[in-house]
């Protein structure tokens, strides 16, 4: 952590000037976004400051219980976020349950794997590694999962006649939605596959940039970034498969009937 130039509140206020300028521009051009820009900017300051203090306290007292609580809160927030992005949610807590379970698979298990098998800090739940890693995986796998589930529910709604015709011809529920399922999984996975292909050429990923700014050797930062990309891609894949499997099963009943009534309109 040597060599990084400290930012003072004054430095940040210069950056804030740019946001103010943007809000002013939005006002002049009647984009109607100025209020949202300012509120969101304020949320950034407050939320990040708070998490800064939380992490400081967590790093000072490395206790498994507190770290687990933190991880649980992050997981539930991610589950909520995945659900709230759906145009048509499953009724009665199923959406949240499936969202959280898939995020658990995509981010939680993969983080534990990375900590225990790959990085191996002492103790394995050392918050300096565990919290940023979990955060990055939650944030980056969320997109794929919510995209794919959204694709699934929207297409099952719009292709109701097709699904029921296939059922009426004697196909099972899995056969009747095989195409939709496949397309939904692809929708969730394509962005992260593209991100892997573009890494380093089109984009310099944030984690690597951060490590370089913090004074690490670029070659070391790259190694971490490669690991993160692989974790995120694998996590997105497993999480998407689980979310699609669970959601599509929930939309049929035990007699292979399509049950769109289990979705909110």
């Amino acid at each position, binding site marked *: 952590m040597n060599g990084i130039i400290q930012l003072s509140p004054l430095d940040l206020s210069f950056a804030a000037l740019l946001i103010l300028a943007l809000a002013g521009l939005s006002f002049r051009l009647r984009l109607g976004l100025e209020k949202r820009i300012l509120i969101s900017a304020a949320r950034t300051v407050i939320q990040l400051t708070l998490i800064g203090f939380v992490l400081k306290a967590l790093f000072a007292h490395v206790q498994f219980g507190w770290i687990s609580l933190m991880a649980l809160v992050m997981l539930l927030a991610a589950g909520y976020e995945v659900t709230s992005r759906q145009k048509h949610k499953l009724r009665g807590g199923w959406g949240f349950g499936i969202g959280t379970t898939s995020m658990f698979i995509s981010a939680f298990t993969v983080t534990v794997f990375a900590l225990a098998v790959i990085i191996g800090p002492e103790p394995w739940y050392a918050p300096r590694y565990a919290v940023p890693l979990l955060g990055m995986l939650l944030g980056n796998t969320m997109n794929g999962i919510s995209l794919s589930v959204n694709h699934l529910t929207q297409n099952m709604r719009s292709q109701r*006649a097709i699904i029921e015709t296939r059922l009426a011809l004697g196909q099972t529920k899995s056969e009747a939605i095989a195409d939709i399922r496949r397309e939904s999984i692809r929708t969730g996975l394509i962005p992260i596959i593209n991100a892997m292909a573009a890494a380093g050429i089109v984009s310099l990923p944030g984690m690597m940039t951060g490590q370089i700014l913090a004074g690490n050797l670029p070659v070391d930062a790259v190694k971490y970034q490669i690991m993160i990309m692989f974790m995120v891609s694998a996590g997105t894949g497993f999480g998407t498969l689980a979310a699609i499997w669970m959601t599509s099963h929930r939309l049929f009943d035990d007699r292979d009937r399509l049950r769109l009534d289990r979705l909110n309109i």
Partner: protein
Amino acid sequence: MARLSTEGLRTQVGGPFSFSVERGECLALSGPSGCGKTLLLRALADLDPAEGTVLLDGENRNAMTAPQWRMKVGWLPAESAWWSEMVGDHFRGQRSDIRGQQLPSIGKDETLATRSAVPQRSCLERLGFGEDVMSWRIERLSTGEKQRLALFRLLLNEPQVLLLDEPTAALDVSNVWKTEEVISEYRKLTGAAVLWVSHNPEQIARVADRHLMFKNGGLEAVE
């Protein structure tokens, strides 16, 4: 024993319905739109959750899986649905039947060829299609062609009960007759029971042995 019988079947808008259809019998159903004709067919095909029992040759539908039931009790929706680019894609797994292009076989080893005295003309041909239809693109089909192909697709499953929801609604007169002929021949050869929803009294008089009409959420016999 009745081919299809139902006791106390309730749909979202009507019932309880209790009636039965004999082997080879054609029962016409009619009533104003929105009276629940389609819902009744869907409930019989086990596509909507519904109270009541439904028996096929005395066997309860819950004794078999839903896909098995729907193979035997085939529902033809009013509007046909297609999910792939080519016509043939929708007939996968039924290739051998298509190659023969006969009316589907009747018993295990009886086919139209052994049972019918009628000159052999393929089912597809009688519905107005050539052999090349399987390589057509779906977008090329008219609504009426889709409706007739959907019937062919259903018959290849060799259902023992046909639930037909206005199967000739989109067809011109000559195709209406062809389709009625194919259905009634299938019924006679296989002993399938047919439930035929129709708005057309003349058609009902032509094809049906019995006629039930929706009234006040129930069914009433029409003489």
